[in-house]
């Protein structure tokens, strides 16, 4: 398995111009993704994870958002490429699946037509019969029972989990190098969630593709990802492997997230642990570390200086926190063992 870098994001910033002021949704985000790997991005609503994802396909409305930095997909910078080049990348190099499979499919056309349409747009030489054959194969691969019959049915005739399988079929029909999954399981039942994650893992091996998995669910991250970015207020606050995140988290926000996870073993019958306060307004981020108003360990420097990402610990994690490394590691292990 080659491990070439298929997606390289450098200093990505996205600013939305709204009547209330400029919203910095994504601030100086950089990461690399190699084929066959899964990168999880976690964070609360408004942390910038979905905007980061849609920037990769340049889906943000260009009249209200200005995007800077660079996003390299097989050597092409998506942010500066012309429209036809971006259109070629969409669907064929980088595909995307969305949160709500109920609304992600066009209700007016059969699922077969929608999958074939995605194939035909990137294979203009193919005939409709070819497209139908490829579509049938794809439906089998994503586990739709009785595909010969169901190919001609409409989205409303499928259950939520089946529709997400259809969306995955659309995404994978062109054998993309990168799959962006924006909360792919959030709208589904727990049992169906596991099936979809398993399906994505199997197909990832088969197609040797890289996955960007965006979620607010740490359980999904633990299940499916290799590396994790933790985002807060539009910035990356921690980057680590999944093992490191769950054994030695290196940012107070990650500690809070882990503390808020409810597990079967948790003893108390009391209230779920939450992170005090609410996510910051992206129009007026607090000065310094944007997490400082909600952080129990904040000091004066946290209110004045933005912490930079630095290596912490022995597991290759990086974190943006002003606490001394020793404190981070001991507090992190404590948070992980809770």
């Amino acid at each position: 398995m080659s491990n070439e870098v298929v997606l390289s994001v450098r200093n990505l910033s996205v600013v939305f111009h709204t009547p209330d002021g400029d919203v910095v949704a994504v601030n100086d985000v950089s990461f690399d993704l190699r084929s066959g790997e899964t990168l999880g991005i976690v964070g609360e609503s408004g942390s910038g994870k979905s905007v980061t994802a849609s920037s990769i396909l340049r889906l943000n409305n260009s009249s209200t958002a200005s995007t800077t930095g660079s996003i390299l997909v097989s050597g092409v910078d998506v942010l500066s490429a012309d429209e036809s080049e971006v259109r070629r990348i969409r669907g064929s190099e980088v595909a995307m699946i969305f949160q709500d499979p109920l609304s992600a499919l066009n209700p007016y056309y059969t699922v077969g037509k929608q999958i074939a349409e995605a194939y035909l747009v990137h294979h203009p030489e193919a005939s409709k019969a070819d497209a139908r054959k490829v579509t049938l194969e794809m439906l089998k691969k994503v586990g739709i029972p009785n595909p010969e019959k169901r190919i001609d049915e409409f989205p409303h005739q499928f259950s939520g989990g089946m529709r997400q399988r259809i969306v995955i079929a659309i995404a994978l029909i062109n054998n993309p190098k990168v799959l962006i999954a924006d909360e792919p399981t959030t709208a589904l039942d727990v049992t169906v969630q596991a099936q979809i994650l398993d399906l994505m893992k199997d197909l990832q091996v088969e197609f040797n593709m890289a996955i960007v998995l965006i979620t607010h669910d740490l359980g999904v991250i633990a299940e499916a990802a290799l590396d994790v970015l933790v985002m807060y207020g539009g910035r990356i606050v921690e980057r680590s492997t999944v093992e490191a995140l769950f054994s030695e988290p290196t940012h107070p926000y990650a500690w809070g997230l882990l503390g808020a996870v409810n597990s079967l073993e948790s003893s108390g019958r009391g209230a779920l642990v939450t992170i005090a306060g609410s996510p910051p307004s992206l129009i007026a981020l607090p000065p310094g570390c944007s997490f400082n108003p909600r952080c129990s360990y904040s000091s004066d420097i946290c209110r004045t200086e933005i912490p930079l990402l630095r290596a912490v610990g022995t597991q290759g994690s990086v974190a943006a926190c002003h606490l001394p490394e020793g404190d981070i590691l001991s507090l992190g292990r404590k948070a992980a063992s809770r």
Partner: protein
Amino acid sequence: MFMFIVRRIFFAVLLLLAVSFFTYMLFAMLPSDPAALTCGKNCKPDVIAANRIRLGYDKSLMEQYWLFLKGIFAGRDYGTGAAAFSCGAPSLGYSFGQHECVTTLIAQTFPVTAYLSIGAFVLWMLIGISSGAVAALHKGKWQDRAASIFTSIGVSLPTFYIGLLVLFSVVIWLQILPFPSYESPFVNFPTFLRTMILPWLVLAVLSAASYTRLTRNGMLEAMNEDFVRLGVAKGLTTRIILRRYVMRQALVPIVTIAGLDFAGLLGGAIITESVFSLPGMGKMSIRAVVESDLPVLVGTTMVAAVFIVLANVLVDIAYGYLDPRVRVK
């Protein structure tokens, strides 16, 4: 699907029956004596009495209604002997104001209304949908604002005002077109066009306004749908996305309302026909109201009702084709 259509048509017929009953009874309750209206001011009592018997107004109301219904299917004979005459099926009664079978009168006036309606309809769909699409694609820019000004003007100004204004400025003041005088398109096509162009435009522009708004809002709403985002993420061209994803969704409510609007127009564009003196069904209805010519009113009401009920059935059927989610298996 077939059973669905059969059921819809069955209920449509029931509905029309109810409409005919209430219309007939309503007009029969007007405080005027139809027999006395048959022969103007210097009517002799014996003529009134003879006409009453001849036109069947001596019978009970229910019996009159029954004869009316029967006439629709079997035609109807009036009077006996030398004064006898008949209106063939489908007979909608006899106009004592114009001394003519109502069906004949409608057959004379309906084509005018139909030409007016079809021309105006085609124009207003073209104007409405294209200006709405332009507004949606340039949301917030000057095209959008122009469309919204057009919409407010079109929605708020009544036909008789705009109609008279256009008639005055184009025909009387600028003298670009001659005063409208209707000719059948098969007799004198250029005159027909010269007469129809203004009423078409007036009707189209005013009706187009609400379609502009409908198209604009429908498209903007559709553009926010997740499935449109997925279409973009697939790498589809803007043209395909607009046609298969955005317009497809925006068209559903447009078709519904267009069907009903068109049917309503076929019942007679009363004001437009009067302003531009077109001898259509609307103008005939106005005259019938003034003259208390009850059979004509019942007849035109029935024709309008048939079109509206029919349009409803057609829209329901079209819906099944437009939106697979409401398709009946």
